[in-house]
């Protein structure tokens, strides 16, 4: 036995040291700050299914955090396999991957969800196959799943065109048995970009109709523009219109572009009438960018000033803007500078959250019924221990999602 002393001592040191280290770090990983959404007033039920997405800094590292009434989940927590399964995808994508594993396989939407359409009854995914430069053809690869029956419909449609050098999918919608795909088509010979709409019939897998609906022309050198599709495809929008935002920028010189657009146009495309309308925003909320929320065929905008927070709704059909909610920003819930109020609207309810600077709670959540104006719920994000709160250097609420 003594002959093996080298072997035995090396193995002993390795086993003791490595296992001690990993046992210690396994115990320590349970020490991430814990928070939960706690009711102050109103009906607890309203806050169920609400997730506040936030980010916090601790010891110079940023972590993202999801907070619900049940508690908080840190992106850093969990075993290796849990972290692996969590990936980088947003939670609704992960849920789709779990529920429709076969359909979601090979669909690369972690960073960009514009190729996916998701509503109560079906999922649609449209991918453009790599552009075939030799034959000037591009192929739409369309995949549709009926959620209930698990019926899967796949077809490909190839188009010839030598006008464009590159296409990408800007958005996918399904309406009345047709898949409508919006693409950005980049011109071959100029800097022009067009937004095109393609209608595909699901029943026979044929392209029914195609038309350019919006374009950025090669403007003079002093200006530049950008078009974004701002509908969100988070599974609840049941809209018959698609919203585009066209930002115009001023070029100061060849390289530099102004970071803020000098003009923003909002355009709504009606999927049923196949018409594009320009949305005329009233003076007082002009200049708001990227704040539109669409829910149940209504468009919502927020306007935040130093002392007030207002929500406007816009009806595309009769082109009317209505101020539907106004709140005074009191000192007690003084939002930290530059962060403002994060908000979302679902089912005619307004969800608002802001980071608090009172050093007691981290953030608040308020749910308001937009019909009656009644506050349904008021709550705060509370740290499970005072230590958790003290350890945080910074906290921001980045979004609110409602299940």
């Amino acid at each position: 036995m003594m002959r093996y002393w080298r072997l035995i001592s090396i193995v002993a040191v390795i086993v003791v040291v490595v296992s001690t280290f990993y046992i210690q770090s396994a115990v320590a990983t349970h020490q991430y700050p814990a928070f939960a959404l706690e009711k102050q007033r109103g009906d607890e039920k309203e806050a169920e299914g609400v997730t506040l997405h936030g980010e916090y800094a601790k010891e110079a590292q940023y972590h993202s955090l999801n907070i619900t009434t049940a508690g908080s989940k840190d992106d850093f927590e969990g075993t290796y396999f849990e972290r692996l399964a969590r990936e980088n995808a947003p939670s609704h994508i992960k849920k789709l991957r779990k529920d429709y594993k076969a359909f979601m396989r090979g669909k690369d939407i972690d960073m960009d969800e514009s190729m996916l359409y998701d509503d109560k009854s079906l999922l649609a995914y449209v991918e453009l196959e790599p552009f075939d430069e030799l034959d000037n053809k591009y192929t739409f690869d369309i995949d549709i799943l009926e959620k209930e029956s698990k019926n899967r419909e796949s077809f490909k449609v190839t188009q010839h065109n030598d006008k464009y050098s590159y296409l990408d999918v800007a958005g996918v919608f399904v309406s009345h048995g047709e898949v409508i795909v919006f693409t950005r088509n980049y011109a071959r010979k100029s800097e022009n970009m067009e937004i095109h709409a393609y209608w595909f019939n699901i029943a026979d897998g044929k392209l029914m109709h195609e038309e350019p609906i919006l374009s950025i022309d090669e403007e003079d050198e002093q200006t530049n523009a950008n078009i974004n599709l701002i509908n969100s495809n988070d599974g609840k929008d049941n809209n018959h219109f698609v919203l585009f935002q066209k930002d115009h920028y001023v070029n100061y010189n060849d390289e530099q572009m102004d970071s803020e657009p000098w003009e923003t146009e909002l355009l709504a495309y009606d999927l049923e009438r196949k018409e594009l309308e320009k949305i005329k925003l009233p003076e007082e909320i002009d200049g708001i960018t990227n704040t539109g929320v669409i829910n149940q065929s209504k468009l919502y905008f927020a306007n935040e000033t130093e002392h007030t927070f207002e929500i406007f709704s816009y009806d595309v059909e009769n082109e009317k803007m209505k101020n539907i909610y106004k709140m005074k920003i009191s000192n007690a819930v003084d939002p930290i500078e530059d962060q403002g109020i994060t908000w979302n609207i679902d089912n005619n309810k307004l969800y608002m959250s802001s980071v608090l600077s009172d050093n007691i709670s981290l953030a608040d959540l308020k749910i308001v019924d937009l019909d009656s104006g009644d506050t349904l719920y008021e709550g705060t994000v509370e740290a499970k221990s005072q230590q958790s709160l003290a350890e945080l250097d910074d906290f921001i609420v980045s979004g609110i999602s409602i299940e």
Partner: protein
Amino acid sequence: MSRYLKLVNFELSRFMKIYLVLIAITVISQITGIIVKSKGYLNEVHRTIYGDSISKAQYIEEYGTITFMDYATSSLWFLAPIALCIAALMFYVFFIWYRDWFGKNTFIYRLLLLPSARLNVLLAKATTILLLVFGLVSIQLILLPIENNIFKWIIPLDFRTDLPIHEMLEQSHELSVLIPRSFVEFIIHYGIGIMAVLVIFTAILFERSYRLKGILMAILFGLLAIVIFFLQDFVELLLQKNYLYPIEHLVVRGILGTIVIGLSIWVSNFLLNKKINV
């Protein structure tokens, strides 16, 4: 089994002197480094505080606090011995075989004529490399808290931010490869390491069996191992689609790695028994 253990013990003792020197260099360099660097930092602080006549609080506000890892990952005192150990062991992966042929007396005769399976010689050598690596990792794990305490003695509390060891490791890319944050990753990292060592061993045996021609065969075998291990990535690259979910990726990778390890051992066994030239 006892033959194998004897061989491992024997191989360990052959490297023990160099190994202890490596450990000594690491301990001395890292501990000297933490003292020199911390003192240097304190001197710098004093100079700034007296030179610019600012208060301690102002200094901290302006320059912030430091962590142990700030020192460690930016200092050659700390990183150079780690690099030296890695280089020495990588060299020894080859030397562990070639010394038996080119040593004072061709020792490989005796090894291969031992009345036990020849594969034991290979497995013992692989185990030795693995134990040497884990030994150095353990030494580093013992050293880190000691160094952290020295750091704490020298730098006053106001000027430093303390982190638990495992969090410090996560912040350093270099160290988190050697000491990953979870045990599963530890197994994965070093599993890949064992696989690489076995493939190199097989390549060496190819060279020893067929000499010049063997070098070509060794290179081909290495390429084959790479192709097998990264098969799923090649397929996905070709199809331009990520068909597998992350967990499935890991499982397939595990299976492919096991195939490479199995193939290496099988080919090595064949070469050792049938082709090796002494």
